């Protein structure tokens, strides 16, 4: 049983600012169904003053993920974007009293969604999915980059591999990257400038299932769903096997006579362009 503070439980029971702002000025997203937690943050921003006038969230996740999202919306309302950008995951955890060490990644998720939302505003409101800044992925199970690990170590003064896992999830599944995390810890904590390790671009077909799903979800969310949503439709990712992507059309799309054209002519074409020309779409 986790030791949640009263404030975590209070925000979990009565989350503030739930939902999505219509015609939002900024939409930031992080996480996925695969990872077990995801957060979508929408903001209303005053164009003159850049003050966040309203903030809403939708979260899939555990009690501390919901509480972190809820408290974040309260923290940023009324702040300018510049002020909001300074909020760290530790600030979110502090605002909640504290979070169990194993749950610190929930506060990191809040910070990342906020970063993505601010980026979204800079790009004129186009939804932005938070992405690790580099291709230099250390933990392939949870798609965590060396930069993200270094940032977590520096911001939160982490000293053990276990801490890094609690804050970033890296190393939390198969554990194969624990040796590499230890090396990063040694480098950062001895103040040496971290040398990026081999950063080759892997072909889509060689990615792990989680990486594939994350990349496909990003394309679906940024390039496909906004189009489908305009016609009252949607698409759900069902499975990925090799380069075969199985999806289900939802809403208006599901019964649409042009469904096959949408699948092949639009969704498959977009995935081929953005990710890999060998991708094919199957209808679930």
């Amino acid at each position: 049983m986790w030791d949640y503070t009263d404030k975590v439980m209070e925000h979990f029971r009565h989350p503030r600012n739930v939902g999505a702002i219509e015609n939002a000025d900024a939409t930031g997203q992080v996480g996925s169904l695969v990872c077990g937690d995801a957060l979508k943050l929408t903001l209303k921003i005053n164009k003159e003053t850049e003050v966040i006038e309203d903030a809403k969230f939708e979260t899939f996740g555990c009690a501390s993920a919901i509480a972190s999202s809820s408290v974040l919306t309260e923290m940023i309302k009324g702040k300018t974007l510049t002020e909001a950008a300074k909020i760290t995951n530790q600030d979110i955890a502090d605002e909640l009293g504290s979070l169990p060490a194993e749950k610190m990644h929930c506060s990191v998720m809040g910070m990342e969604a906020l970063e993505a939302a601010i980026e979204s505003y800079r790009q004129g409101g186009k939804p932005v999915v938070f992405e690790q800044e580099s291709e230099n992925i250390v933990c392939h199970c949870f798609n965590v980059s060396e930069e993200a690990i270094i940032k977590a170590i520096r911001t939160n003064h982490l000293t053990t591999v276990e801490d890094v896992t609690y804050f970033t999830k890296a190393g939390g599944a198969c554990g194969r990257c624990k040796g590499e995390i230890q090396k990063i810890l040694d480098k950062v904590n001895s103040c040496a400038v971290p040398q990026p390790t081999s950063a080759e671009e892997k072909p889509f077909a060689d990615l792990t299932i989680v990486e594939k799903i994350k990349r496909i979800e990003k394309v679906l969310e940024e390039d496909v769903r906004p189009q489908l949503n305009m016609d009252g439709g949607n698409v759900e990712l069902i499975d990925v096997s090799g380069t075969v992507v199985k999806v289900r059309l939802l809403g208006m799309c599901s019964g649409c006579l042009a469904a096959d054209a949408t699948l092949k002519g639009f969704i498959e074409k977009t995935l081929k362009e953005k990710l890999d020309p060998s991708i094919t779409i199957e209808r679930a």
Partner: protein
Amino acid sequence: MKTIYLDNNATTQVLPSVAEAMLPYFTQKYGNASSMYPMAAEAHHAMEDARAKVAALIGAAYPDEIIFTSCATESDNTAIFSAVRSFPQKKHIITSKVEHPAVMHPYKFLESQGYKVDYIGVDAQGRFDMAQYKAALDANTALVSVMWANSETGTVFPIAEIAALAKQHGALFHTDAVQVIGKMPINVQEAQIDMLSLSGHKFHAPKGVGALYVKRGTRFTEFMMGGHQEKGRRGGTENIPYIVGLGVAAELAQKRVTDGSLERMAALRDKLQNGLLSSIADTKLNGDPENRVPNTVNISFGYVEGEAILMHLNEYGICASSGSACTSGSLEPSHVLRAMGVDFKFAHGSVRFSLSEFTTEEEVDKVLEVMPVIIENLRKISPFSRMK
């Protein structure tokens, strides 16, 4: 608020009659069973009485086939390391992908020591892949160890069939039977089992006591090395009060298997299952609906996360479990559900309810009343549920 305890696969309440039977062995009859005076003899007799009751519960031919241990993890470790030490020339082990960590972790260790371990898969309903198993067996197989029922889904494996094949290939057969004791009739002789692990606290004995059945004639090497206790098979002074408790609980469990309790429990479980599946959309039953222990139901609620469901159930005093990553120390969802190919949409939102013979219809009705509201509220704040 009254507690509605539906997590009996995690642990059970110690029955008052069990606790009462144990008490004299703490403060009055506290002799060491190995000593030479009447109080020691009393302890010794109480222990042998318990041994006979545990033997009867699982259909063992002789009471001395029962070795008392501290828990099922110790029983599992003992069985596995005994098998590999007793047959040092054989370097192959077969198990399943859905075992408890108490057997998984010893196998991971043995793999690092050069053993080949085959992890037999399961289908979407959690059923054992018999064809894959048959293909994996060979003359080099030292041990086949497969759980009798799965703790998360309640799915029961065809242990007699699996054991018979192991015997044909000259391999030892061990089963972790923790989740079937008191939930269905079992007989180690009929099923040709060489070794079987059980745990007291899963059937109303206290935590801290378990047993390992070792069939007479089975080559055995002890795990806990020490004194001559348990005929040299398990060193350490016998934990008499807990062994007495295990005996009483075994006797009660054996009665329960035939007195209609199981049928009553299955009926309540089915009511809970059908009620949840019919009143809430986007749900999925995990496990084999046919071959399942009568107390367990595992349901996935799409687009929501399991820990959040449990936290809301707490508000009503309802205790259950989840295969969600967030409820475990690890960050991955249940290895059992993933082995079944349950997709992530459902894997993170699984909830297991495990009943006992004391579960009442009112308790089940309460769960059926509150669950639809809990799921609806969580889906309202989930970014994925709008997809539908």
